[in-house]
């Protein structure tokens, strides 16, 4: 399985969502008619606050949730008319751990391959490859409940890849995972994306999205409020805040035209910088005043800042915020 529509070698649309809506039985409208396109080979971040509708959207794509309206096509296969083929193209790493905790690591991935119709011999070869790449091969005979949280998440990735899907959906795959493992997962995801797998990622670590993804869609209140290239989205951020660590404490900060400079403590200042202006002039003035900067960093993750602004703007527009 795992094939899709389109001509061989010609990139096509991996995902096309049109006017997708979902109203739960309790009346909650989780999705209010969203549109989203993801091209083949893309690495797309689907971001949004808790309860925004991300997991509902993913649930509909993977047929774990029945939609109320709209259409979804996965590599040209409509989930209403060609669900089997659409499913063959999809791999899912869900947000919640959904492993059979009493089953062994190797069995879990080989069984999953079997559900996709992959013969056991091929499944075993692939299982060795993916479990090795995700540093789980040594634990193949362990039962899943004996694995750490990070290992369980990696096992879910191996399980989702065993049928070699063209579109991999990861719903917060690095939640609760330590930094070292998170970084190694980033390397792995970049590699499989470079090898041709289209990836959709939801995450609350916006640094992760900024590092990995080329497309970003922000969903809030069941609506897509931003959908663009990551570079375009970040360009919309007109002001960045930098934190400067000074070599020596200063009694009073100089006025720097075009910049807003605030003192945090004796040796730390924050500066708001217009992205059109650059920071050269700032350093010139500081140097003229004999102030030496020993290090500098972004106060906040850029995407995080933009994300907060978009969500806050929407709340203000809706009259729900200050």
């Amino acid at each position: 399985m795992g094939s899709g529509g389109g001509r061989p070698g010609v990139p096509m649309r991996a995902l096309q969502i049109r006017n997708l809506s979902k109203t739960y039985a309790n009346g909650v409208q989780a999705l209010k008619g969203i549109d989203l396109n993801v091209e083949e080979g893309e690495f797309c971040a689907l971001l949004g606050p808790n309860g925004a509708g991300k997991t509902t959207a993913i649930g509909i794509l993977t047929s774990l949730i029945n939609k109320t309206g709209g259409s979804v096509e996965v590599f040209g296969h409509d989930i209403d008319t060609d669900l089997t083929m659409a499913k063959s193209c999809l791999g899912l790493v869900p947000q919640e751990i959904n492993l059979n905790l009493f089953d062994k690591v190797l069995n879990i991935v080989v069984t999953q391959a079997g559900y996709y119709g992959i013969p056991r011999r091929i499944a075993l070869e692939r299982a060795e490859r993916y479990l090795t790449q995700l540093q789980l091969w040594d634990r193949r005979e362990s039962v899943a409940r004996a694995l750490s949280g990070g290992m369980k998440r990696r096992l879910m990735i191996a399980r989702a890849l065993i049928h070699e899907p063209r579109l991999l959906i990861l719903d917060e795959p690095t939640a609760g995972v330590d930094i070292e493992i998170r970084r190694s997962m980033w390397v792995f995801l970049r590699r499989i994306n470079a090898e041709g797998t289209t990836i959709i990622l939801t995450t609350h670590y916006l640094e992760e999205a900024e590092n990995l993804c080329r497309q970003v869609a922000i969903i809030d209140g069941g609506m897509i409020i931003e959908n663009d290239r990551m570079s375009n989205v970040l360009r919309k951020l007109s002001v960045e805040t930098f934190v400067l660590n000074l070599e020596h404490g200063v009694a009073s900060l100089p006025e720097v035209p075009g910049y807003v400079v605030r003192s945090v403590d004796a040796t730390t200042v924050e500066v708001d910088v217009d992205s059109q202006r650059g920071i050269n002039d700032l350093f010139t003035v500081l140097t003229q005043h004999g102030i030496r900067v020993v290090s500098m960093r972004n106060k906040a993750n850029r995407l995080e800042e933009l994300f907060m602004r978009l969500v806050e703007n929407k709340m203000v527009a809706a009259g729900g915020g200050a």
Partner: protein
Amino acid sequence: MGRPTRLRENAVALYTLVDKEYTRIVRIWIQTLVPPAITMTLYFVIFGSLIGRRIGQMDGFGYMQYIAPGLIMMSVITNAYGNVVSSFFGAKFARHIEEMLVSPMPASLVLLGHVSGGVIRGLLVGALVTLIALFFTDLRPVHPFVTVSVVFLTAVVFSLAGLINAVFARKFDDISIVPTFVLTPLTYLGGVFYSITLLPDFWQKVSLANPILYMVNAFRYGILGKSDITIGHAYGIIFVFVIGLYLFALILLRRGTGIRE
């Protein structure tokens, strides 16, 4: 994708699910195979050997010999049902049922795979209880085809019923209510321990509303050649249940009742 490829993939998927169910039954044999063997041994010792001697003949057979087919059937019914309800609900509760739901496996295969698991356990336990019964009495099927087909179809019926129970269950209590308050009383009143000819007319008629009566009697007919129910009538009832429950379970799985939002 061609039809032969799809058929081959579906065959692999079904084999995978059946193998998983079989492995589960064998892996936890202390929970799946040993308890029914112990329970039925006690039934044979207490009802058959100790009390049975004082009861004497039932329908022309020694009491032990008379109740043996019913006890075998009782264990098949309980275990076929119990296997599917616990396996399916367990997968639903722990959410690893999603492994199947996201895959291209059609609902009919999910149903067939789980029912196969229930039938396998039902028949394994049935064979085990038959072996135990042979220590206490002589059992030589008079109608082997009827014996095998009835036990198989009954296992199918209760595997399907177990799956339907699991689909609707929301908590563990929900999977024990039906076996405790429906299945056990119906089995005890289903002619396992007595012939309904012993009952007054009114209760005989009430007993005819119990589907398990037909299965137990058809199985007893297969082994002893004696039944309170005509065999054609029994087959008719069993087939109605197989087809009805199969269609109902399939509709539930296709709609995603209890397993999809």
